[in-house]
């Protein structure tokens, strides 16, 4: 790729386009769910959080976290289809928003739902399997968020990739947590699980294709 040194280019490069246009837009768009929840909470612009605002915040933040996890997992397949978009540049931001909404979700539970009753938080995490599962997912997100900087990526090298494969398990745990807390109507969590199944299934097939391609006539191709 770097046969000739890049001449300093003027105008809009992909790099600059992402930095000054795409990323700010995605950043603001990612805050829309939060803005909507705040509006609903205060009854602004005709939005309503209903009569049980604590439950509303728990559910909506949790679902939004799952939405962002699935979005990060969609980046790779879309990237495969349209490499010129360089969507990988957005993946870190989407992942960090997943962590952000998961953290808000957990904070609502601790602060508003349980009123800082740490004894009860502990008891819930130990005794309520669906909370154990959700809490595990949150804990596993933590190292991914911490190692999301360029420096950590460089420092960890190949181990970084391996570490960040945790997201597959986290996604499954998160959806399981959602599924398990439903009283009986599990249609929505099943939908999330179906999307996850497609995204993970794609990765299985993809690695198989790649292996076959590597083994095949184009032996020189590397992943």
């Amino acid at each position, binding site marked *: 790729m770097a046969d000739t040194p890049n001449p300093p280019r003027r105008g809009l490069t992909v790099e600059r386009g992402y930095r000054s246009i795409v990323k700010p837009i995605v950043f603001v768009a990612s805050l829309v769910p939060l803005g909507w929840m705040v509006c609903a909470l205060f009854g602004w612009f005709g939005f309503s959080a*209903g*009569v*049980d*605002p*604590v*439950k509303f915040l728990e559910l909506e933040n949790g679902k939004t976290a799952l939405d962002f996890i699935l979005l990060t997992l969609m980046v790779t397949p879309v990237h495969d289809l349209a490499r010129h978009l360089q969507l990988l540049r957005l993946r870190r931001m989407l992942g960090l928003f997943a962590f952000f909404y998961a953290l808000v979700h957990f904070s609502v539970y601790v*602060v*508003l*739902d*349980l*009123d800082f009753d740490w004894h*009860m938080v502990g*008891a*819930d995490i130990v*005794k*309520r*399997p*669906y909370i154990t599962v959700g809490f595990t997912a949150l804990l596993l997100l933590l190292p991914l968020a911490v190692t999301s900087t360029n420096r950590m990526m460089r420092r960890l090298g190949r181990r970084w990739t391996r570490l960040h494969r945790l997201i597959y398990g986290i996604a499954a745990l998160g959806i399981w947590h959602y599924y*398990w*807390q439903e*009283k*009986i*109507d599990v*249609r929505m969590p099943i939908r999330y699980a179906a999307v996850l199944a497609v995204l993970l299934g794609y990765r299985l097939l993809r690695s198989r294709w790649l292996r076959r391609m590597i083994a095949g006539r184009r032996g020189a191709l590397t992943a």
Partner: protein
Amino acid sequence: MRFRVPGIAPSEITPPDAYFGRRAFLAGALAAAGTALGRAGAAVLPPRAGMPLAFTQDAADSVDALVHAPNQNETPNTWDQITQYNNYYEFGTSKTDPAEYAGQLQVRPWNIAVAGEAEVTGNFALEDFVKPYALEERIYRFRCVEAWSMVIPWVGFPLARLLQQFKPTSRAKYVAFDTLYRPGQMPGQRVPVLKWPYAEGLRIDEAMHPLSFMVVGLYGRVLPNQNGAPLRLIVPWKYGFKSIKAIVRIVFTEQQPLTTWSEAAPDEYGFYANVNPSVPHPRWSQARQRRIGNPFFHERQDTLLFNGYANEVASLYTGMDLRRNF
């Protein structure tokens, strides 16, 4: 007493404070008018949700309309809270589905079938069914199995009064209730999340307990559809799902009847479903509850055994293992 009132406008709803002030006044007026209207009085059920109901504040059977309990916020919830946040899967599984879709349900004409181990059985029109009873108001705590709660001013009459009319035989050990099955007007019934029609039941002594209540109204008005119109049950010491809505069938049985939730998930929802902070749901704690209407930062309050009605109902369960019979 048939007059037409269009659908209920928000401005028409009396705010709780004014409502309870006026209610005290009405009760005084009714008492002054003599007991003729009170005790023997015939319930007249206006045909539309939200129309005013005549009732007496005198609780029959000497039951205090609100049995007070310690450390509970006993301020009744607002009309909006009670009518916009409902679990009524016949209209959808979201809390707002009932308010959105229940309007399409036709609650007139309405018939109730009574069958089973009783001397008097048959089909009854709703108007005749409720006519013999004086309506009264009862402010009960309401605790959902999902760990949220409200305080609600119901209007109705004791279930025992109704059941006695049918002269249950000695073989009547239980009473079973069915909700209407009408998927055309109840969109949730087109989805098999539960087995339709919804069925519930009580042991006969539970049903005959003076706290068990047949409800036709809310806040002094005809019950809105999303709250179970035209006729629903309220058993205030049990989780909300026992308090079956839109009743079309009452059967006296010798065997314990099948009930919808305990059939759907037998290890999670029992036949008794008594409110009990020390018997958790297998997946979540029942020790506390989110009290709807509490301040945002202190929505939680403790859950009480039998929802705070232990003095009244605990004797029904003497010698029973409440953990096994959850």
